[in-house]
């Protein structure tokens, strides 16, 4: 490895250390305990897809809240560790939540709706 490559890798590792600053909060799977996470699933209320995700997440996580993507606000995420933004049906008809540049909550975006949201936020995870 060249000296320059080593310096680049060392810098990346240091920066990653600053980014990941919180203790690991997911226990080993074999413990059988629920994962100590509060997850906020924001999607299409009453849909089969919402029920599918929520019933699954509740099996593994200590707390699962639900929200409506059409009414999403950053303030709603305050008491959760992770936010999941999702929608079913025609992605062209999916609500497009407003998320500001200072939003820092760990968030998963799903499927084509998530890809388009990533594009709107100018993320590297943008669609296409």
């Amino acid at each position, binding site marked *: 490895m060249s000296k320059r490559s080593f310096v680049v890798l060392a810098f*990346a590792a240091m920066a990653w250390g600053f980014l990941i600053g919180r203790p690991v909060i997911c226990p080993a799977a074999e413990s059988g305990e629920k*994962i100590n996470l509060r997850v906020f699933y924001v999607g299409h209320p009453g849909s089969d897809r919402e029920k*599918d995700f929520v019933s699954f997440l509740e099996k593994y996580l200590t707390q699962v809240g639900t929200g409506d993507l059409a009414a999403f606000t950053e303030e709603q995420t305050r008491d959760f*560790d992770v936010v999941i933004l999702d929608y079913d049906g025609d992605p062209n008809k999916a609500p497009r939540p407003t998320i500001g540049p200072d939003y820092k909550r760990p968030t998963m975006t799903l499927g084509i709706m998530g*890809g388009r949201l*990533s594009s709107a936020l100018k993320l590297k995870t943008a669609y296409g």
Partner: protein
Amino acid sequence: MTDAAQGEPSNHEVFTKPFKVEPVFEEWNTPQSYRRGPGGAKLPDKLKVWRVQNTSPQPATRSNPASAISRPLGPSHLPKAEVLTPGFNTSNRNGAAGAARDGNFLQWGFSAPPSKMTDAGRNFFLNCVCYIAKVK
């Protein structure tokens, strides 16, 4: 993107913590869209994939319109952004991301709800939830 992630999972923690992701590998025909990209002519006729979800019974020959593929990312994007797995797709380049992260956002490009995910897909999804929870 289709139902599948492409290639062997990396040693990234999203494949090991807290649940071990154990893919069932298949070999699918190399998409024509890959041939148009850099190095496409040298790709083998078939590529190793593993299903994250089951929305099509046969090896997919076209992408699922409800899923999304993201652009390929390289080491220069670390630590801010990273590809967690390439997605097997029929409309984009080889190496485009099926799941990727940029800062505190993790884009899961697959479309199916958990009841239609494979066991490997469900574990991968849960691990992604745990992983992004640590990013501030």
